[in-house]
């Protein structure tokens, strides 16, 4: 059905009405999620800065033909290694190996084969140089996260990465690139420490700035993480209701945040690593528990 100008205008009007209604709704992600996302972004940037992870011609995360490129890369590597091995019998000039490698497991095998034949060909400098390049490529590939190509290759890559990486590092496919909440839970259970910067929420009774029993348990993951990561810092943010006297409610939020700060210190976190943030006004009456909450977020600079 062809869109007429009037139906186009009608559709535009509908979309605009929806957007206005959506914006007025006020719905947004929780502060804990926002803090966790920012912390993760910083963590990933820090890790990438610490070690190079990008290969030349590595498949793009949004590349829909990465499987084809991966298989093509395997073929190129196999040809390159075969040439290196063959040339060992003749003193002809040798083309350099083409390290467009996509599979860590396959290259490891090929590099191992090249290694075993190395003593026979080291008399020819070009062959030794090429062998070294192949081995260097294999070592570099071995440090990369696994890329899903075939079940056996993936299994070998995951086994090696598990040994090389932190024990709690969760696994994910290159195509989706996300860590499931269940993966995070499993990793945490294995190591006893949160894998990624955790967040916590502490709720207070109405008209109270005293901590309820059991609050230290709610802060456990945060404390464990802070103790395991010296550079991590905690931000404590008190929330207050949008109804009533703003100044009074804001002071209450600050007192609640201070109580949580004191609790963290009592649990062994240095006061210099805890920052009480500006209180945040939250929509809703004082009856609603979210207007009396304190959010604790962890940031890794």
């Amino acid at each position: 059905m062809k869109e007429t100008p009037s139906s186009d205008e009608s559709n535009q009007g509908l979309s605009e009405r929806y957007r206005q209604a959506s914006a007025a709704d006020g719905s947004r992600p929780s502060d804990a999620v926002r803090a966790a996302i920012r912390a993760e972004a910083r963590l990933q940037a820090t890790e990438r800065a610490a070690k190079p992870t990008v290969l030349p011609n590595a498949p793009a995360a949004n590349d829909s033909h990465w499987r084809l490129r991966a298989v093509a890369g395997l073929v190129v590597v196999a040809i390159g290694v075969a040439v290196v091995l063959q040339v060992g019998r003749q003193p002809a000039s040798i083309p350099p190996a083409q390290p467009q490698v996509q599979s860590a497991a396959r290259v490891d095998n090929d590099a191992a084969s090249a290694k075993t034949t190395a003593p026979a060909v080291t008399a020819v400098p070009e062959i030794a140089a090429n062998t070294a390049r192949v081995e260097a490529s294999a070592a570099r590939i071995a440090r990369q996260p696994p890329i899903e190509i075939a079940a056996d290759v993936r299994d070998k890559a995951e086994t090696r990465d598990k040994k090389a990486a932190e024990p709690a590092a969760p696994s994910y496919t290159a195509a989706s690139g996300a860590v499931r909440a269940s993966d995070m839970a499993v990793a945490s259970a294995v190591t006893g420490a949160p894998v990624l910067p955790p967040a916590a929420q502490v709720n207070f009774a109405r008209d109270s700035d005293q901590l309820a029993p059991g609050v230290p348990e709610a802060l456990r993951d945060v404390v464990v993480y802070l103790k395991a990561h010296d550079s991590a810092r905690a931000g404590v943010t008190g929330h207050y209701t949008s109804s009533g006297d703003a100044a009074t409610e804001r002071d209450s939020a600050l007192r609640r945040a201070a109580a949580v700060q004191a609790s963290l210190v009592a649990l062994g976190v240095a006061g210099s690593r805890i920052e009480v943030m500006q209180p945040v006004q939250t929509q809703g009456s004082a009856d609603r528990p979210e207007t009396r909450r304190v959010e604790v977020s962890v940031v890794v600079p």
Partner: protein
Amino acid sequence: MARYAAGDVAAFDTLYERHELKLWRYLQRSVRNQATADELMQEVWFAVAREAHRYQPTARFTTWLFTLAHHRLIDAFRAAGRQLQLVEGGAESQQLLEQLPEVASREPLQQTVAGDQARAILDAVGRLPVEQRDTFLMQAEGELSVEEIATATGVSFETAKSRLRYARGKLQEWLQEYV
């Protein structure tokens, strides 16, 4: 994204601020549950942070972002133990959606309308069949074109166009009837 991949964390913050609410609204209006939407929001942006160094601008960032989100939504619906039948009309998927746990209760549309046209249109969007709502939200929140929606959801251009046309038609019909 390129700047963030090169280590500029402030670039990520800018990217996040620019897309936060539209992605959030897309997720929240799809699952209609704060906690589930929070979890999906975190998963999607964690994926963005982790895959930044492999992103290439062959498609718009928004398209990529909403593609990731769409896949997470599908996974979430499946994890709820339901098999959604993605058919035109979507009566069956609508029934299944209503059986998903923690779906917010809804009053009949006419009872939410009085003096609140904004709530009416949001309520109406929530009543659309899953795939039509998904398509409408990608266009309305993400401002994706029909072609981009087709790519993100893995359907043909005509299917995406048909779903969008159905969604708009249904919304117009409901809103004319009750507003």
